[in-house]
């Protein structure tokens, strides 16, 4: 057991976790109706990808992956700001957040 603990977590585990997160995000994106849940699914996908980045950065001792993660987080933050603003605007106009009902390119 000790031996097991002292060993590093293998690369594939991280990647599997990353893929699982991403897949969860995709599924949530596809099946959820609430706009905020859809939005959160996107965040989930982004973070799944981030995990891959960090994993590989650690594996290959390359700092580039870490930097990319910063970029992704920044873009995600900006996106969250804009996206939430849009969601609030949509909700005010339509009194609903069901994506199936929001099918016009205008408020």
């Amino acid at each position, binding site marked *: 057991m000790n031996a097991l603990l002292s060993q590093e977590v293998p690369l594939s585990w991280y990647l599997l976790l990353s893929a699982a997160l991403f897949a969860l995000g*995709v599924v949530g*994106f*596809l*099946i959820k109706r609430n706009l905020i849940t*859809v939005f959160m699914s996107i965040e989930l996908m982004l973070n799944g990808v981030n995990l891959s980045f960090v994993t590989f950065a650690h594996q290959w001792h390359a700092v580039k992956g870490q930097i990319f993660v910063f970029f992704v987080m920044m873009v995600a933050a900006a996106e969250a700001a804009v996206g939430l603003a849009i969601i609030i605007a949509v909700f005010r106009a339509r009194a609903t957040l069901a*994506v*199936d009902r*929001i*099918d*016009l*390119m205008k408020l």
Partner: protein
Amino acid sequence: MIENLHLWYIPLLPFVGFLINGILGRRLPKWLVTIAALLAPLAAFVCVLNAVQSIYFHLGSPYAPRGILGYGINGYVPLPHIETCPLPWISIPALHVDFSFVLDQLSLVMLLVVTGVGFLIHVYSVGYMKDDEGYARYFSYLNLFLFFMTVLVLAGNALVMFIGWEGVGLASYLLIGFYFSKKSAADAGKKAFIVNRIGDFGFLVAMFLLAANFGTLTFTEIAAKLGMDPGWNGGVVTVIALCLMLGAAGKSAQLPLYIWLPDAMEGPTPVSALIHAATMVTAGVYMVARTHVLFDHSPFALSVVAIIGAATAIFAATIALVQNDIKRVLAYSTISQLGYMFLGCGVAAYSAAIFHLMTHAFFKALLFLAAGSVIHGLGGEQDLRKMGGLWKKLPVTFAVTTVGVLAIAGIYPFAGFFSKDAILYAAFLQGPNGKVLYAVGLLTALLTSFYMFRLWYLAFMGTSRSEDVHAHESPVSMLGPLVILALLSICGGWIGMERFGAFLAPTVGARVAEAISWRLLIPGTQFSISLEVLLSIVAVLIAIEGWLIADRFYRRKPTRPAQWAAAMPGGYKLLANKYFVDELYGATVVKPLLGFSRIILGWAVDVGIVSGAAWLLGGLAMFTGAILQRWQSGNLRSYAAWLTAGAAAVLIFLLVPWTTVWPASMELVWKVAGH
């Protein structure tokens, strides 16, 4: 350092006049329009005179030139004087074309005629067009014409000449169709333009051939290349010369493209005088003289020119015999006189042709303007049969018309005599074929004299044949130019062929000068006369004979023309209907072309192919759009699904090792199928 004569002022000034009257004309008061319209050609004329003066000064002064005139080597401006725009126009390895103007003896004579006569006709137009609504429009077109005509004349290469060539065609079209609300005028304008296009096609082909074979379009360089290599004979030179002649025939109304000129009389009469008698229609003659080296190297092309000229001269003269519209008589006489000029060119007597061009510009402008004065005086009446006895009512017009008629008939010592005589003489010297050309020319002279005196008798002599005619003499602005042109028609020929030929010799060669100097001893006397004088006497006698016949027909026995017409109904009908050439062209060219256009181009090509292709493309786009628009539902989750499916497809495409999977799966299919 050769002085700069600023040749480009000459075309520019009329162009400025065109811009002023063309853009602002309707808003300017009439007197300002008049001033702008008159100043433009006058200033151009002054510029030409300045050029003449500088050249005369340099050629003729014993003391060194000084001051603003500058000087060249040994104190004279060498002619030809070429001015080139510093920026090249077309510069590719095979061809270099500059925007260049050339002033030599030939273009100098033409410039004097174009701007001088042009100015007089502008002055005349002030009176003639006084009450016309399109006063400013008229003068802007007239100035535009002068601009293009001076470009044509000054051109140092064929391409610049082509600009002027097309431009005068445009101005001519605009002025023929000046009364565009009248259908016949609009049609005549179109006819002139389209027929001229056929000639322009010849000019274009000639230019392409020149560029391909000589690598230059500059007249002096072509002449130099031809002069260096005597091997240039026949062949391509003949083709080029014939194409040029096609262009000249279109512009100068020669057989078989003359048909537009009689119809061009729909324009205002001063326009007929300026464009369709004195200047533009002579552009073809000028062009042949300008490119004469090509013709000189092709005897065949030269004889074609001579035959076309002689045939046109007599053909048009016979039609003119029976026309009753005063302007149509003059139009056919113009065609006939242009035929003379081409006859002159065709026997390589270019200077004689240019001489006739000049005198013809004087007396034909005079005759047209006098006809305009008659029409003006009679309130628009053009039918000779309704005139008569006008000499009392229009004394000045009568006097100047008499001068014009005497000049065109070739009576000594009026201008037409000298130039016509020079052409006939040159034709006579041109071997045995020349004698035939001479005979045709002489017969034409007889006809010319007859129909001009017919016009004279019908319009001015006898008694008035129409009661409701209240003729009045024209204003001074019209009579002034008439009197000046009458003086020119009297004196214009006095310069004499020898001096004129010697002046032009550097530019067009001096082949006329090689006259045979045999003399005829008058039997029983000590006196002998030279061939030239003898031929002159014959020509004058012929002209007087024409007069006498006209006198018998239209004064002493006024019933005779009707008798003759009744005696030869077929011949009369043929002439009165102008040999049915318009009908012939209508049946053989226009109608088939219209039919072809309507059925093949209209239905098959336009409706079928062009329109069909447009409908097909549009239909295809609408069909695919109708299908694809279902995709764009606006439903976010369906978009997301497609996006995911696409990403998955890409992933599958990238990750599956197709090279191994594909054969294996094919094998599986093979086995499943039962093998």
